[in-house]
């Protein structure tokens, strides 16, 4: 008989199979590369006598329900009870699932557990000291974070046909009398373990100067600095020697008209420090069809960027070497250019005069800093040193280069100061960003559902990005903030895959659940869910102050609100209930305004008519209904305004709690008038 045959049989004996995947060293005690001597270890890290040569492999311990006769070898019947605290898919987050597994303890012989049993002088299998779980805990102290897998099967079913029902991370093991209780949580909890700013062992290898803000060059003399400090002047120098004039070029195809240009000089540190503006009239009647720029020498010049109001939103990058450039028709026509508004001319305090005045010298070198180990850093990003946020544009070995200092909050930093990593992401496909975050939490692709890739491939919406977050938070908050900004839900399925579904993507129902054939007698409860009904929805986005808390409304540039006026009226609910969202991922990217409008419209529709929750139980035979599934419900426990019971009403499972021979479900009714 197959699993499904057993499931649908009238009488059957279900069995839990619990697998704990613990660390184990693959080497043999005292044999190369292990150089340990003396009393033998147990091939675990905490019993290792030669830790420098310890290698981390795994060993799977298998346990089954204690009530059954052993159906196959290699398992111990220690599973007394499995209790679930189920995952709950809520409107704006998912509460991860947890469970406790109570294991019976036993005076196990330690055979096939202790790899060196015969070498320890045991003379009687019944006289080995200790008990199974006491020894297990003593040998495997680093159990936290290791995986535990719970499978469901039936007596008579081969082991390889047992179905995986969850995979979790072990959080704790307690011992109570003659029972060991294992506490575990689903894989999404790994996101909570990563806190930002992320503490590291990385340190700066030299002192870093302070960056002062002078504004104008005349203010430099009054700046209070130390030798080595820098000061920023934000007035552009004139781009000396640069000229622009209409021109006749074989490749030119500009039509008659006036063309405006903003031309900037950039130094080796990628800073704009000089500029000149031009308005050039091109007259086709004079055979003019292009604009020619000419320039002479300008100190520190590495790159010229030409911005124009009839060109691309990005600039035209020009190599200074030839000394000229001919501008012709650019096929890409967009709107106002996004050129730099402030210069970045840095002066370095090099000495003090005999009268004590500071002597500042123009400096164009790029800012960089050597750290103790840059290997774990991304190729670019943001770091926090003391209280200063610093952006780095690249790295070469252990040198972080292209540093952009926070001149408003710059401080001197002393050698060996540790650095913190800030979470940051530039424009990207949001589903790929979510997968990247799961990878950061060490959730690998085996536990990530294909739905992420499918949505990523189909996505035609806006890119998402996030500025460097300097307020204390964890990756779970950042993750679900993005999920929420996508108007989606994420959860861990029973097959232990992290799944995602957009709220407007409603698939066909997997099953109909009815009073007659699925719902256990007296198990139905209805929640009208009024506490989750709102009359307006507000979204704050485009956060600019990354040190402010996520819910600090004043740290966002934009706010948009949708209001259901009927709901707020005297004839409606006669109250104002505002659901407020704060998005870290919706900023100033192209198309964000339209996206926000659509998002709030959909949210308002749903939240102003909050779906009813229905809780019911089924017998084990219906355990193929999974968390997140869509079903239809037929029941007389809830009726329409005419008193007729629900028939094939659409609903989504938002909570699933196995409980011995039953499963308790909570489903959210999908309103057809949404």
């Amino acid at each position: 008989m197959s699993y499904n045959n057993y499931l649908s049989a009238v009488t059957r004996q279900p069995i839990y199979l619990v697998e704990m995947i613990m660390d184990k060293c693959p080497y043999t005690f005292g044999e190369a590369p292990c150089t340990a001597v003396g009393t033998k270890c147990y091939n675990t890290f905490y019993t290792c006598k030669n830790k420098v040569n310890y290698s981390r492999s795994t060993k799977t311990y298998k346990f089954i329900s204690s009530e059954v006769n052993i159906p196959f070898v290699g398992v111990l019947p220690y599973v007394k009870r499995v209790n679930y605290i189920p995952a709950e898919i809520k409107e704006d987050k998912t509460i991860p699932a947890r469970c406790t597994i109570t294991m019976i303890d036993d005076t196990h012989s330690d055979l096939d557990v202790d790899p060196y049993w015969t070498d320890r002088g045991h003379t009687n299998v019944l006289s080995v000291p200790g008990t199974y779980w006491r020894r297990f805990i003593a040998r495997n102290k680093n159990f936290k974070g290791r995986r535990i897998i719970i499978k469901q099967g039936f007596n008579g079913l081969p082991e390889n046909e047992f179905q995986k029902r969850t995979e979790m991370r072990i959080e704790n093991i307690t011992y109570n009398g003659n029972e060991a209780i294992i506490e575990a949580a689903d894989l999404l909890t790994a996101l909570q373990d990563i806190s930002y700013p992320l503490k590291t062992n990385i340190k700066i290898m030299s002192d870093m100067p302070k960056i002062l803000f002078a504004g104008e060059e005349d203010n430099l003399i009054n700046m209070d600095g130390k030798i080595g400090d820098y000061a920023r002047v934000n007035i552009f120098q004139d781009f000396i020697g640069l000229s622009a004039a209409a021109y006749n070029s074989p490749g030119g195809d500009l039509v008659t008209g006036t063309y405006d240009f903003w031309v900037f000089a950039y130094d080796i540190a990628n800073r704009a420090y000089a500029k000149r503006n031009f308005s050039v009239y091109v007259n086709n009647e004079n055979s003019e069809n292009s604009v020619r720029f000419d320039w002479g020498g300008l100190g520190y010049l590495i790159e010229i960027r030409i911005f124009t109001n009839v060109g691309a939103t990005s600039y035209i990058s020009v190599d200074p070497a030839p000394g000229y450039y001919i501008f012709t028709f650019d096929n890409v026509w967009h709107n106002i250019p996004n050129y730099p508004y402030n210069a970045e001319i840095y002066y370095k305090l090099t000495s003090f005069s005999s009268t004590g005045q500071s002597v500042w010298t123009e400096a164009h070198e790029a800012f960089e800093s050597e750290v103790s180990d840059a290997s774990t850093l991304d190729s670019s990003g943001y770091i926090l040193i003391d209280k200063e946020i610093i952006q780095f544009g690249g790295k070469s070995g252990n040198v972080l280069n292209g540093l952009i200092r926070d001149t408003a909050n710059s401080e001197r930093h002393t050698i060996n100061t540790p650095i913190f990593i800030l979470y940051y992401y530039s424009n990207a496909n949001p589903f790929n960003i979510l997968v990247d975050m799961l990878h950061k939490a060490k959730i690998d692709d085996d536990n990530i559902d294909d739905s992420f890739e499918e949505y990523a491939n189909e996505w035609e919406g806006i890119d998402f990005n996030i500025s460097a977050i300097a307020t204390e938070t964890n990756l779970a908050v950042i993750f679900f903030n993005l999920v929420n900004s996508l108007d989606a839900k994420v959860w861990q399925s029973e097959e232990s895959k992290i799944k995602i579904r957009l709220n407007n993507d409603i698939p066909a129902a997997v099953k109909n659940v009815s009073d007659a054939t699925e719902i256990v007698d007296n198990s139905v409860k209805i929640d009208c869910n009024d506490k989750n009904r709102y009359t307006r929805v507000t979204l704050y986005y485009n956060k600019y102050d990354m040190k402010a808390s996520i819910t600090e409304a004043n740290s966002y540039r934009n706010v948009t609100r949708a209001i259901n006026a009927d709901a707020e009226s005297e004839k409606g609910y006669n109250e104002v209930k505002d659901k407020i969202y704060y998005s870290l991922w919706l900023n100033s990217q192209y198309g964000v305004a339209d996206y926000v409008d659509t998002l709030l419209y959909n949210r308002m529709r749903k939240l102003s008519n909050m779906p009813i929750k229905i809780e019911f139980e089924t017998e084990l035979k219906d355990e193929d209904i999974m968390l997140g599934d869509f079903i239809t419900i037929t029941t007389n426990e809830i009726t329409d305004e005419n008193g007729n019971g629900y028939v094939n009403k659409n609903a989504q499972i938002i909570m699933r709690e196995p409980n011995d021979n039953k499963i308790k479900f909570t489903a959210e009714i999908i309103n057809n008038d949404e």
Partner: protein
Amino acid sequence: MNPRIFYNNLCIQGTLSATDTASGHSVYNVADWRPYTRWKAANASGTKYISLTLGSAKKANCFIIMGHNLSGCEITLQYHNGTAWVNLTTITSPTNNDDIIYNFSSSSNGETRTQFRIAIEYISEAPEIGILFIGEYLEMPYPPDAPYPRYESKVQMKSEISQSGNLLGRVYKYEMIKMNSTFSNLDRTWVNNNIYPYYNNHAKYGYPFFFAFDLNVFTKDIFLCNLVDDYTFAPSIKYLGYYESISFQLEGRSK
């Protein structure tokens, strides 16, 4: 046949070895009274032996195997007479997947030796054994006081019905076997020499043992059991060299 208790397993008292062993399935698993920890051979070829070497000669007149996959195999208990291996008793394992198989010596008293072994032949897959008992049975002098139930069977099940009254399903949890028996007017000397060693050296520590009421009549009624948790051992002495009675309350798992 009178009730028999099988507790004095020689496999615990000597050194075991096997023809071959699959990794993670030590041959000593057959001696720990747990049917769920098993010896398993490395392959399914040839005749497999599990050999027992004792420090001093001891008596064996039977073997029992519980937890196995030996359907259709021929299993022989042998002893070494100093020169060669000699068959003591042979059984062909039935193909009905009975969890427990056993056999007793055809000679009335078995053999007292330092070396015993079982030979397993005609195997079709790598053999596995959960418990191997080689030793001498303790036979009660007569049946228990009548009437007595063969055993009590208590089944744990849970059923659910739908809102409309339909049976949705039943989950079978387990079956517990209970056996209660009282033996009256036992000879005091016999009790002192047989029951007290059984209790003091084995049963009072909670170690399991095999028990059978009457294998001639109830051929399948052999159970792995133990004394109940709150058992009180209280043989009451009577006059004329007898014990008034001894009661056993046993519990075990169904096969």
